């Protein structure tokens, strides 16, 4: 049996395999070195960064739901400066793609972030967070408004020559309109999808479980929705797509790739099984070989037949 080729070139980012840790579940990377060597995985996306550190939302912030969880962390992060000084330097020796997820509270802050991030050697690519539904002044207004989305992407495009990926919110009527606007304004790739807005009620206390009232639903429960959106976006745009949403097994990875993803990001399952990424990397070749597939590239969008 010849070796299965797992390599992916994602919008100019070289990934040794299509398995990437998703933003908000992977800290700033180092955290997972207690479990495995980060050079095994294709890459990871950092926790969403802002210009200034953010304390995040009051507790309770999380709630388990059937085959999933709600979170309203509120974009807690250490801020760009501490990331550069304390985290990025420690990743220099790690042979994996480091993608920085970032956001601003104003269009101008997005641009300032993009300008600063553009200068960092250790950063392989940027992921714009326009879709975090938790913070009223943060992501929500950008990612669900088509004109603001276009403006943010276009101005960030001017500010950086690094590969620019936009993480889309699923909380819109037609995600393909947003996918097209991102492509038209210079995005190099898309991440599909961020979490779905939901809530849960504490029936004894007669109030929402989360202090923030609503949170983002993630985990295996959202996989069919995410897969549908990847399928639709693949038909709408020609830029590469990261498939994200409830990926738990190698066969999920293959489903997303066949729906149109060039690579995938794994989020919530890192919490359940911190070894999930290396396990997927090791399971994938055998599964692809059993499907008579020689490379990841050859099955991107294979489920589309017209």
């Amino acid at each position, binding site marked *: 049996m010849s070796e299965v080729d797992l390599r992916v070139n994602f919008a100019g980012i070289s990934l040794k395999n299509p398995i990437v840790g998703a933003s908000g579940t992977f800290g700033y990377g180092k955290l997972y070195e207690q479990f495995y060597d980060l050079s095994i995985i294709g890459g990871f996306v950092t926790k969403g960064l802002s210009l200034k550190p953010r304390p995040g939302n009051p507790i309770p912030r999380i709630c*388990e739901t059937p085959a999933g969880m709600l979170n309203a*962390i509120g974009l807690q992060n250490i801020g760009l400066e501490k990331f550069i000084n304390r985290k990025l330097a420690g990743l220099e020796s790690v042979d994996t793609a480091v993608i920085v997820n970032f956001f601003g509270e104003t269009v101008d802050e997005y641009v300032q972030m993009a300008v600063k991030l553009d200068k960092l050697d250790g950063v392989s690519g940027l992921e714009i967070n326009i879709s975090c539904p938790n913070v009223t002044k943060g992501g929500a207004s950008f990612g669900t408004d088509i004109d603001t989305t276009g403006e943010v992407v276009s101005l960030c495009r001017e500010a950086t020559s690094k590969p620019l990926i936009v993480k889309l919110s699923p909380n819109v009527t037609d995600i393909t309109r947003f996918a097209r606007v991102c492509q038209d304004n210079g995005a190099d790739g898309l991440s599909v999808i961020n979490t779905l807005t939901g809530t849960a009620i504490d029936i004894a206390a007669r109030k929402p479980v989360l202090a923030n009232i609503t949170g983002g639903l993630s985990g*295996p429960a959202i996989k069919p929705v995410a897969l549908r959106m990847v399928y639709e976006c693949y038909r709408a745009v020609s830029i590469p797509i990261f498939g994200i949403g409830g990926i738990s097994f190698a066969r999920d990875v293959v489903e997303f790739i066949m729906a149109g993803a060039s690579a995938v990001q794994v989020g919530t399952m890192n919490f359940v099984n911190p070894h999930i990424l290396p396990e997927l990397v090791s399971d994938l070749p055998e599964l692809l070989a059993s499907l008579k597939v020689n490379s990841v590239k050859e099955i991107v969008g294979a489920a589309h037949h017209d």
Partner: protein
Amino acid sequence: MNCKVLENRTIARGFNHLSLAPDKPLGPIIPGQFVMIRVRESMDPLLRRPMSVAGFKPDGSSFGLVIQRIGRGTEILASLAAGDRVDVIGPFGAGFPEPPGAAGELWIVAGGSGVAPFVGMLQPATRPVCRTRVFLGARNSGFLLCADHLSDGADVFLTATEDGSAGVKGVVTDLVERELANGYAPAMIFACGPAPMMRALEKSVSGRDVRLCVSLENRMACGFGACLGCVTKLKTEQRYVAVCRKGPVFDASTIQI
């Protein structure tokens, strides 16, 4: 890490004690540290449950957990039988600090399933060198969990029950107040139990030269610092810290209980 269930005992109505043997010995455990246990190999319930290690063999070949049956996940865990297998990761977190030296006195205050970290702390192999005064509280005598373990390891062992069926009638913090009023002065107090118990303790020691360390049990998704779901607020700055990494044991003077 895969573990075999050695024994599952009901220790009170709604409480079980699980003994687990990991396939590979668990690393060194500091009392107060916890493990994340997968309920079962399915997607529902999805998340692991954080459980304080309740006693362990010093060589890491087995350890205990106190399971309070409060929901689907813990009901499933409480239904495990000897020979079943469960997946566990850990130990995680900062446990209790070094107890005082031989000259000092350590007080241990536990309510409900808050006994768990002290089962290990007071076992013969790891017992502190200092004098220990243990305060255990519960609704009634049937809920004084692991009382034998604690009383064996303690120099002084005191209990309080809300209905007076064992020990002093009242809450455990009344008993602490009484001993303080009697002139006994601990160098440190280690506490684990419901938030009102820990808040009452904080009040009792205010103005005294006592270091109070409390173990929190916030809900967690991951247990190792990735999800930031379990945070607690610092007292002095407008900032949250992850209970799983900076805690679960905190100096009470640093956090909002």
